[in-house]
């Protein structure tokens, strides 16, 4: 009898913790965020740790030139 009560208590505690975790995930929006990239997608790290990928990206779409006026002499 005593063992059955303990088992129910453990189950109830587990359910409460699981529900609280689920609610937290829902509130913070974490549950909606994908963990892995979909096909064709990259993460920040995937690109910014791969020099070839960066080079290819910059070659295909160069950064805009910063427009500055020419100064003369030492500033």
């Amino acid at each position: 009898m005593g063992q059955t009560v303990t088992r129910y208590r453990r189950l109830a505690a587990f359910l409460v913790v699981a529900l609280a975790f689920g609610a937290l995930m829902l509130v913070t929006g974490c549950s909606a965020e994908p963990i892995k990239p979909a096909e064709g997608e990259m993460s920040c790290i995937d690109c910014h740790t791969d020099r070839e990928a960066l080079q290819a990206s910059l070659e295909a779409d160069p950064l805009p030139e910063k427009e500055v006026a020419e100064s003369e002499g030492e500033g």
Partner: protein
Amino acid sequence: MPPLEADLGALVSPEFFETTHGKMDCRDCHGGVKFAATRAEAHEGMEPLPSKSLTYAESVCQPCHTDIAENMAANLHAETPAVSGTEDAIVLARASDPEIVKEGLTNNCSTCHVSGCGDCHVTRPQYNDGGFVRGHVFYKSPNSSLNCMGCHGSRIQKEFTGAGESEKCELTADVHWSPGAMQCVDCHTVEWMHGGEPYASRYESPTAPKCTDCHAQDAAFTSVSMHSAHGTADSDVYLQCQVCHAQDYNNCTACHVALNDKGLPFFETEESWFDLNIGRNYDQSEDKPWDYIIVRHVPVAESTFDYYGEGALGNFDALPTFKYATPHTIKRVTRQTENGCSSCHGNRDIFLTEDDLQRLSAAEQAANQDVVVTEIP
């Protein structure tokens, strides 16, 4: 300094991920999108310079580095009030029409400040188009060559590394220049860099570097006859250390500021040259007690702001144009010391005299009356 290749400037090193900042989500600081198929999509809402903030106290670094971020706003690197402040700029003392000068300061001078904490601790300065120094690894002490000299390139770098040329002597690097060892921050300490109390100019800060921070005026110092004669407050004639130990340094003249036809700011300076002049200390104080100091010609001219309105610097003689300087050209034996006493005594060439002012306008001559040495010692 030539800009870094764009891909290298954005390449994150594996070492970064072993550091505290590298264990955070990129978006914690930069925003942006977690996964994306295109660069444009990935960078939507992304801030490449997250520490860039008009008030450092509100920057992304503030929550963890609270004290530094809050003090930083009072630092000369955060703003440049003495150079460009519309209320505090030193040049305003020369202004007869301050509003014209303020317009020029706002357009041409106020862009000269760091673009956030990252300019010193993550990337090269944005003034040099940025780019990671160590693959996004944050570093406590800025690198002299890649950070400090990125901005302080034309005057300090040339002087410090011995890259300048003088018609009067051979120049060598400052004895303190040692790219693999001593760094700028060894003298220009973190207490100074990160500010605290506001002060009017870099010379006014109580934590500004002094030679005596390392070179004590003790018995060994005064055992050198030149030092006992000129190197202590008890000396009859007290000299700023640089009077003897600076090599020739950079001087500039006639800086003019304007906007081009697209509204972009630019400047033109007429001439730069390496020379050395000893002048009278026109601004003696407890911090600057010397009788003679080193003076540098600064680039201001009566017509500096003429693009915005002629004659705006009508009180041009309110301040000297040969100004107190602390050049980064230090050496033990210089042309002021190599021949003993006669190196200076009777040597008209190393003093700023009336003759040196002859080529200047009447207003500029008047501006330097308290600086010129009328009798060569």
